[in-house]
């Protein structure tokens, strides 16, 4: 007996490709080209954090001790779990188990939303502790350490940019889930799930680098 909600699996050939295999490979390569530009963007931010740590060790360590280490660690667990559900969606899409795939995609979006909620709580706690040096009308808690402003500002730039990517990812995932729940989707567009999965795993990968660089190494 096959699983409930099983569909035919395939990719509809676009006119400008010779074969479906060529179309699949071109899509994967194109996604990787974009992901690598994103990697260079985040790498520049992370490298600047490390240079700051070398130039101003005391200020950066003091600022890093004020970051919410345990929320950062919990959020890493949340994203690892979301990567597992995304892998589940990809595997089920290959099997044509549409209903299970849609559930996995919704679970992935829910975990991404949980990450953003925790991040929002963390930002709120930082605001309450006067750890937002870019707000001109509020005193800054580490005013005695001017270099800490650079680190804290970079922390917001890196995590804010990551959160923006995650927010965009959740929005695209929800649209894709809606499309993927329609009959016949997997027969024509199965590889969209795989291509999107690359993006989601990449968001996870960036956070896996951000957590040690921002929260762990500088303590």
């Amino acid at each position: 007996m096959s699983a409930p909600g099983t569909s035919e699996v395939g990719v509809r050939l676009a006119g400008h490709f010779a074969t479906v295999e060529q179309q699949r490979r071109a899509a994967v390569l194109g996604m990787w080209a974009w992901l690598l530009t994103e990697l260079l963007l985040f790498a520049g931010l992370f490298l600047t954090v490390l240079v700051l740590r070398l130039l101003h060790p005391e200020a950066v360590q003091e600022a890093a001790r004020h970051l919410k280490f345990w929320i950062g660690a919990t959020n890493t667990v949340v994203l690892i779990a979301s990567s597992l559900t995304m892998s589940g969606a990809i595997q089920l899409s290959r099997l044509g188990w549409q209903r299970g795939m849609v559930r996995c995609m919704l679970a992935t979006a829910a975990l991404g939303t949980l990450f953003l909620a925790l991040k929002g709580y963390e930002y709120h706690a930082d605001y309450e502790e006067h750890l937002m040096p870019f707000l001109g009308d509020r005193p800054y808690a580490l005013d005695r350490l001017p270099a800490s402003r650079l680190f804290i500002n970079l922390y917001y730039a890196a995590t804010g940019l990551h959160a923006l990517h995650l927010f965009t990812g959740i929005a695209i995932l929800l649209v894709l889930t809606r499309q993927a729940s329609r009959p016949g989707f997997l027969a024509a567009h199965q590889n969209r799930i795989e291509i999107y999965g690359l993006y989601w795993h990449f968001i996870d990968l960036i956070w896996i680098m951000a957590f040690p660089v921002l929260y762990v190494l500088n303590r």
Partner: protein
Amino acid sequence: MFGLGQDDRRLLWQRMRAPVLASAALLGLLGVNVLLGATRPFAGVWLVEIAVATAMVLVVLLVSMEVRHEPPLVRLFAGIGFFWVAILFAMTLVDYLTRAA
């Protein structure tokens, strides 16, 4: 489980085995870094933390993003991207780490 027959469950586990093991490995490695970050057991602990983070990145790349199953062109492409980042980090940090105090 979820209305699946025995064959389907076996097939599902066969497909999900690698992602589940990868997640378990990532959680284990994260646990190591969290423990090291919380306790700071020795002076050069940052080297271990970077090694653990690198291992986590490799697990995501090779297993979750399935680079190991991709054709050689994609593997080369992904590898070169991270290689460029490694050059960026190495050349910049060599400069700062070797400057006189």
